[in-house]
């Protein structure tokens, strides 16, 4: 019952203050419509006052002021970002008169309507830290995943891609807030929440948001601070990304948009391995017994596995709009080859947006349905590692072998031919995803200002993946004898939301009120059937069949999830000068036990537009100055399902246990904490929005701090307390604090066309993460993390109170006078600093040393136009991000030449270090990966052909990167471990777009 309170409360509040019509003196009614002078579109939320009464305009700009005293009156219409307009009228008792206004925008950035949680607001009135990026500001060129559109554009937002075309992206808004639960933001696409985790859904291996054609996106709004996100409650701790697709609105005739482009991507950098001569010399010195096995070739294995990746894209969109309806139908096809052979993405997408107004605009219906099929081909998982490890002295082909490719003849673990793997193995996925919804908004005539909303949506995904390694590949001959993996995963989610918004038509006290209250129901069902085979009896069917095999396991995992929420928000606005917003959300999640399911997440934010105050109003040039402050508590439940539920898991066919004469399928009890509950983040934000010269120069500064407590954390527990040694529980706390700056400057703003127009944007954000506490009983504890390649189970990162999460945890390398790392295995204290002075070097001498997340992220965007030319570029810099060069550490030791297997190529760092035995824990491999990169530069030329507008454009992505980092890419993923990552490409795109 209590959980109904916020909902019912909101309704009761509305009923209580619903306007009653009464008349003590002769009065009349004024009716009219407020429009934008430039666009002729109705303006909602404009304050219209006459005779001591004021009302707000509806969504279509219409207003009605009843009970205006008869006689001469002045009608004033005023809203943020527009010049005030007045009109003198004479009201006759009992009569209705019409007063229409067209307002002229004075500061567009303030009047823009921004989509926020369950509503829209004018940018200037927002009291949280919210950034909207519209399509004109999006990154140009070859863009596969929507998140890439805003890389660099929003302060405090880090978009981490993995270089694979359309590969999985991670987004961090103001740092990571959790360890075990997800730190990914919540995505809302046209009102449909996408679920939790990266990309908010399921995929065959690439980014789940790839179902969304970036060309269909109109705007992406990022709710950075907790107070704006809190209305979304669950998962809002990590911020919210609201994606709005294009609609047919605003067109008065059918418009056909066409876009086509072609791109070519090249490899920018590959690992720095020894060449054939250096390798042969190293073998002669360190593994003389192996010299005879070298064949004196000169093979650059990366040249054999990489390529120029070509891409093409075709988009068609038909849109039309009328007075009461609009639609947009879009079709897209994109094919992109990766720069490593065998990787590609092939996407076909379809989208439909339809809007219809009914009953004099009282009912508006809209539907957004989109679906895509993405065929993803992946480079087989062993290719990059073997391109690193395969000896450069050996040939690619061997007509005498069963595969036709040359390989070492040995039964011991050795590198194998990556080209053979490319040719014979396969790894493919297909993802079908469709997301759609129907939204209805009804404004009943009996309570002006009331809007009842209904949103019903679905999200269906089917993601298939097939990985096939034939049994004649050298590595498979040694171990496994061929493998096949099939997964046919599917997920279906639905959402039902109902909410009411109420803007009382008259002011309440000195200001106007804006109320929202609602209910949301989300459920999701997912199935993960998998087939694993090892020891294939035949390769003939390839990945198209299921051959008999020695080891076969079939598993299926089914999960269900529900999230039920009640939410309410009240906004109060006094003359656009004093602004306040209060919201509360109550969420119930199936991921917690019934007694811990519900969490309540309140938020308060205040805004004070100093520029509206008399003492600043006259200040020359100042167009906006607003101080914001907010506090909010948000929750996170983005963990696996059923982690509170004691269950038994069956063993599969290959982990049966002999019991007497039988092999028994066993059952294993789970180790759970039945009392796990919501992880909570308390966030404070103080911000300043500023604008000068009619917003020609504008921007914001934000300071924030986020304290996450009751971390959902999979931690080691005391032996003898549970049925496992790790349990996911609520323990520990984490802190993020930082500063964000944004500045937009219309540097050149010519009055006449044909001159250079230049807009600049700068963002700078600083974030510091700190794990403040793991175990409340003790001041020191640590959990190792960060698995690397090389050896088994080497962990180079640490979770430790007092330092950022995933800090590197390494020895302090000693260097000789020439700056060369000292190598001395017999006296390790000569090699590493003995931190605790006990005379031996062991785990106790490793210490936290830097971390992978950038301390500063700097971004610059320029947009310019000159006559028929337009263009832009973006620059990005990270400062203070460190990367562990795992390619160097795992391959930078001469011992790799002399093991029981055949010699493996070495990283060139070995020429400096002289390491014989690998030194995985040396901080020599932790490198400063700060960089400056020109992410994007584009140029367009617009022209008319037979009266139709065309635009020809070209773009270069990753034009250059300046960095001191030695490895392949300084943005080596979230965890900062560069282990045979997919190389970064430089992409050249040319395209043509047209409208008919």
């Amino acid at each position, binding site marked *: 019952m209590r*959980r*109904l309170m916020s909902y019912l409360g909101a309704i009761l509040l509305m009923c209580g203050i619903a306007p009653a019509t009464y008349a003590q003196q002769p009065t009349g009614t004024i009716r009219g419509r407020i429009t934008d002078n430039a666009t002729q579109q109705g303006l909602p939320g404009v304050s219209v006052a006459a005779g001591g009464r004021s009302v707000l305009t509806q969504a279509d700009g219409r207003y009605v002021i009843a009970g205006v005293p008869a006689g001469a009156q002045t009608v004033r219409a005023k809203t943020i970002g527009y010049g005030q307009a007045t009109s003198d009228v004479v009201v006759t008792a009992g009569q209705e008169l019409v007063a229409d206004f067209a307002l002229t925008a004075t500061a567009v950035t303030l009047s823009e309507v921004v989509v926020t949680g369950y509503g829209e607001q004018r940018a200037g009135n927002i009291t949280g830290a919210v950034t909207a990026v519209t399509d004109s500001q999006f990154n140009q060129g070859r863009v596969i995943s929507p998140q890439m559109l805003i890389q660099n554009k929003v302060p405090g937002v880090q978009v981490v891609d993995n270089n694979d075309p359309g590969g999985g992206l991670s987004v961090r808004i103001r740092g990571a807030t959790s360890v075990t639960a997800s730190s990914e933001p919540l995505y809302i696409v046209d009102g449909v929440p996408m679920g939790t985790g990266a990309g908010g859904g399921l995929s065959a291996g690439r980014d789940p948001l790839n179902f969304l054609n970036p060309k269909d996106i109109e705007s992406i709004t990022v709710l950075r601070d907790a107070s704006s996100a809190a209305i979304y409650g669950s998962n809002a701790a990590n911020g919210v990304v609201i994606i709005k697709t294009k609609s047919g609105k605003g067109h008065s005739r059918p418009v056909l948009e066409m876009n086509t482009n072609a791109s070519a991507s090249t490899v920018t950098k590959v690992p720095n391995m020894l060449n054939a001569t250096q390798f042969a010399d190293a073998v002669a010195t360190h593994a003389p017994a192996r010299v005879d096995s070298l064949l004196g070739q000169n093979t650059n294995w990366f040249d054999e596995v990489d390529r120029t990746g070509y891409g093409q894209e075709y988009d068609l969109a038909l849109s039309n709009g009328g007075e009461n309806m609009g639609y947009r139908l879009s079709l897209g096809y994109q094919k992109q080859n990766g720069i490593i052979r065998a990787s590609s993405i092939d996407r076909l997408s379809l989208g439909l947006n339809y809007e219809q107004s009914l*009953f004099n605009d*009282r009912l508006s219906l809209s539907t957004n349905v989109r679906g895509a099929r993405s065929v993803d081909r992946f480079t087989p998982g062993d290719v990059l590692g073997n391109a690193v490890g395969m000896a450069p002295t050996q040939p690619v082909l061997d007509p005498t072998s069963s595969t036709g490719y040359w390989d070492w003849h040995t*039964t*011991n673990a050795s590198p194998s031919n990556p080209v053979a793997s490319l040719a014979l193995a396969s790894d493919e996925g297909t993802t079908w995803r469709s997301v759609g919804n129907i939204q209805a908004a*009804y404004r009943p005539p009996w309570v002006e200002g009331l809007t*009842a909303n*209904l949103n019903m949506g679905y999200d269906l995904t089917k993601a298939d993946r097939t990985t096939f390694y034939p049994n004649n590949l050298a590595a498979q001959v*040694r171990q496994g004898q061929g493998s096949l993996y099939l997964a046919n995963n599917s997920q279906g989610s639905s959402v039902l939301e109902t909410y009411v918004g109420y803007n009382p038509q008259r002011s309440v006290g000195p200001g106007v009120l804006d109320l929202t209250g609602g*209910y949301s*129901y989300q459920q999701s069902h997912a199935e993960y059937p998998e087939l694993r085979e090892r*020891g294939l009896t035949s390769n003939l069917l390839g990945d198209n069949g299921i051959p008999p095999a020695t*080891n076969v396991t079939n598993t*299926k995992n089914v*999960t*269900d999830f529900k999230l*039920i929420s*009640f939410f309410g928000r009240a906004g109060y606005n006094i003359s656009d000068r004093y602004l306040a917003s209060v919201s509360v959300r109550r969420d119930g999640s199936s991921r917690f036990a019934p007694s811990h*399911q519900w969490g309540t997440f309140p938020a308060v934010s205040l805004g004070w537009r100093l520029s509206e105050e008399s003492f600043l109003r006259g200040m020359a040039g100042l167009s906006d100055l607003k101080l914001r402050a907010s506090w909010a508590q948000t929750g996170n439940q983005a963990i696996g399902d*059923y982690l509170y539920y004691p*269950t*038994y898991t069956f*063993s*599969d066919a*290959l*982990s*049966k*246990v*002999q*019991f*007497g004469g039988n092999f*028994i*399928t*066993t*059952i*294993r009890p789970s180790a759970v*904490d*039945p009392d796990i509950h919501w992880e909570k983040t308390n966030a404070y934000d103080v911000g300043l929005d500023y604008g000068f010269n009619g917003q020609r120069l504008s921007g914001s500064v934000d300071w924030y701090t986020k304290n996450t407590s009751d971390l959902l954390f999979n931690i*080691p*527990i005391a*032996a*003898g*307390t*549970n049925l*496992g*040694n*790790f349990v996911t529980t609520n323990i520990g706390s984490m802190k993020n604090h930082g500063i964000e700056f944004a500045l937009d400057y219309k540097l050149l703003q010519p009055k006449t066309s044909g001159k250079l127009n230049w807009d600049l944007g700068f963002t700078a954000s600083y974030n510091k993460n700190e794990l403040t506490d793991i*175990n409340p*009983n*003790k001041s020191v504890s*640590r959990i190792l993390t960060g698995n690397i390649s090389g*050896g*088994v*189970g080497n962990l180079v990162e640490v979770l430790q109170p007092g330092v950022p999460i995933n800090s590197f945890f390494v020895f302090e390398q000693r260097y000789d006078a020439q700056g060369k790392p000292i190598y001395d295995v017999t006296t390790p204290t000569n090699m590493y600093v003995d931190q605790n002075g006990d005379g*031996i070097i*062991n785990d106790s001498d490793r210490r936290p040393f830097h971390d992978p997340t950038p301390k500063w992220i700097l971004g610059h965007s320029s947009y310019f136009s000159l006559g028929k030319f337009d263009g832009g570029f973006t620059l990005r810099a990270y400062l203070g991000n460190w990367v562990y060069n795992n390619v160097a550490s795992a391959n930078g030791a001469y011992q790799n030449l002399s093991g*029981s297997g055949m010699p493996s190529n070495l990283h060139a760092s070995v020429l400096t270090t002289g390491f014989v*035995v690998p030194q*995985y824990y040396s901080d020599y491999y932790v490198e400063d990966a700060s960089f400056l990169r020109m992410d994007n530069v584009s140029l367009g030329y617009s022209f008319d052909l037979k009266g139709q507008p065309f635009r020809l454009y070209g773009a270069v992505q990753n034009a250059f990167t300046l960095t001191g980092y030695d490895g392949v890419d300084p943005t080596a993923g979230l965890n900062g471990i560069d282990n045979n990552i997919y190389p970064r490409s430089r992409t050249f795109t040319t395209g043509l777009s047209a409208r008919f």
Partner: protein
Amino acid sequence: MKRTTTILSLTALLSVAAVACTDPTVAPKSTVSSANVFNDPSAYRAFLAKIYGGLIVTGQRGPDGNPDILGIDEGFGEYLRLYWYLQEMPTDEAVIGWNDPGLPSLNTGTWGASNSMVNAMYYRIFYQVMLVNEFLRQTTDAKLAERGHNDPTLVANVHTYRAEARFLRALSYWHGIDLFGNIPMVTEDDPLGAVPPAQAQRADIYAYVVSELNAIVNDLPAGGPGMAATYGRATPAAAHMLLAKLYLNAGVYTGTANYAGAVTEAAAVISSAPAYSLATNFRLNFSADNNTSPELIFTGAQDGGNTQTWGGMTFLIHAGCGGSMSAGNYGIDYCWGGYRMKQQLYNLFAAGDGRSSFFYTAGQQVNVDDIGNYSNGIAAPKFINKKANGDTAQQRGMVDTDFPIFRLADAYLIYAEANIRGGGGNAANALTYLNLIRERAYGNTSADFGGLPPVDTILAERARELMFEATRRTDLVRFGVFSSAAYLWAWKGGVVGGQALPTGRDLYPLPANELIANPNLTQNPGY
């Protein structure tokens, strides 16, 4: 009219939705809740099999992919593989060239409290203990009656299962006190998820384990050579064997020796019926068909087709192969190039000893001058994934060979050692037992002992007979030479010639993380 309908339907939808759907609870689908699982009476056996499997498999997917314990590579975290590392690597027997975390310092006796292998062993031990405790809680007579499981056969079986579970708990507690000394003692009476347990004294756990074994020994299922129905299960002979080992080392665990107890229990093993006997072919005990050996008393059963793991024998067979050895000769797919003999072990073998017939010397040198180089140290592929007659096993990757945990030759050696140490029994029998072992090794009586040898000879004989069978560290500790300077071997203490270990190395440290998670614990001296 239309409008009214719209309003009504919208209002109805709003209120219905808000009232109807306010319960977010969902039940698991692909796992079975603890409330339901025992509705199926076969679940008792399935649960007990999991506890047996806890010695061999690492999780619910073979060979990996759904681990029981976290914080370590799944294959490394296998019970008997960890036990083998801790019992063999710091001794005069084995050296391993890998640099994986935790291993280098095990070679040299320089481990610290964060050593990941030591830590994982500790958690594996308690994982077994906690499974047994939960099993005992779920299988009381009251619980069976509650579920309506009254079938007398089932009830009798469950009684047997409970005894077997208690044996497995005793086995792990023995490992626990042998390796770590004072550890917490948790039983089925301690509820789950409670406060961290208190630390118990080594001697108290010893007493508890002894009393447990004595209480259940007659409830265990009868077994012995040829009795397939109880193969791999704990039999009375297995309980006697464990008691013999506890008594033999009682002086280490409690300060008071009990060699008489060791003699009695070893005699009970030797005289159990049907009688165990030494396998004529020594190597049968370590081959893919070693389940047919008349000598094996208790094993960790593996099967290439059904019971797959990266630990146990999969590890021992693959890692014992390297250098110029051909993997196919040992029935496996490829060599991992891991462990070899230290020269001290190699030098214990005299010419003619058949137990050295499988040593692999080509390209190998005797002395371990460089731990990382596989060619340093003679390779000893004692375990093999081929049948004793040379036939192939089911698969080359995953092995069929079972891990011999207890075998008769060890009972003979215990009897002899305890007798020599004054534990009583029959000296003539003791000599006979020793010579049975010697005669099998040499194929004739040429190397027989004329009379009972001094006890130090038993230590050497144990190395020859039981090399790489995970008993060595316990033996060296019992003989007082594990950490002292009295007996040095290659790389002991971190120097190639060997030096005494720092004080306290007879015990492993309690995991550093565990001291944080459980404030009741006091670290072992010297760490």
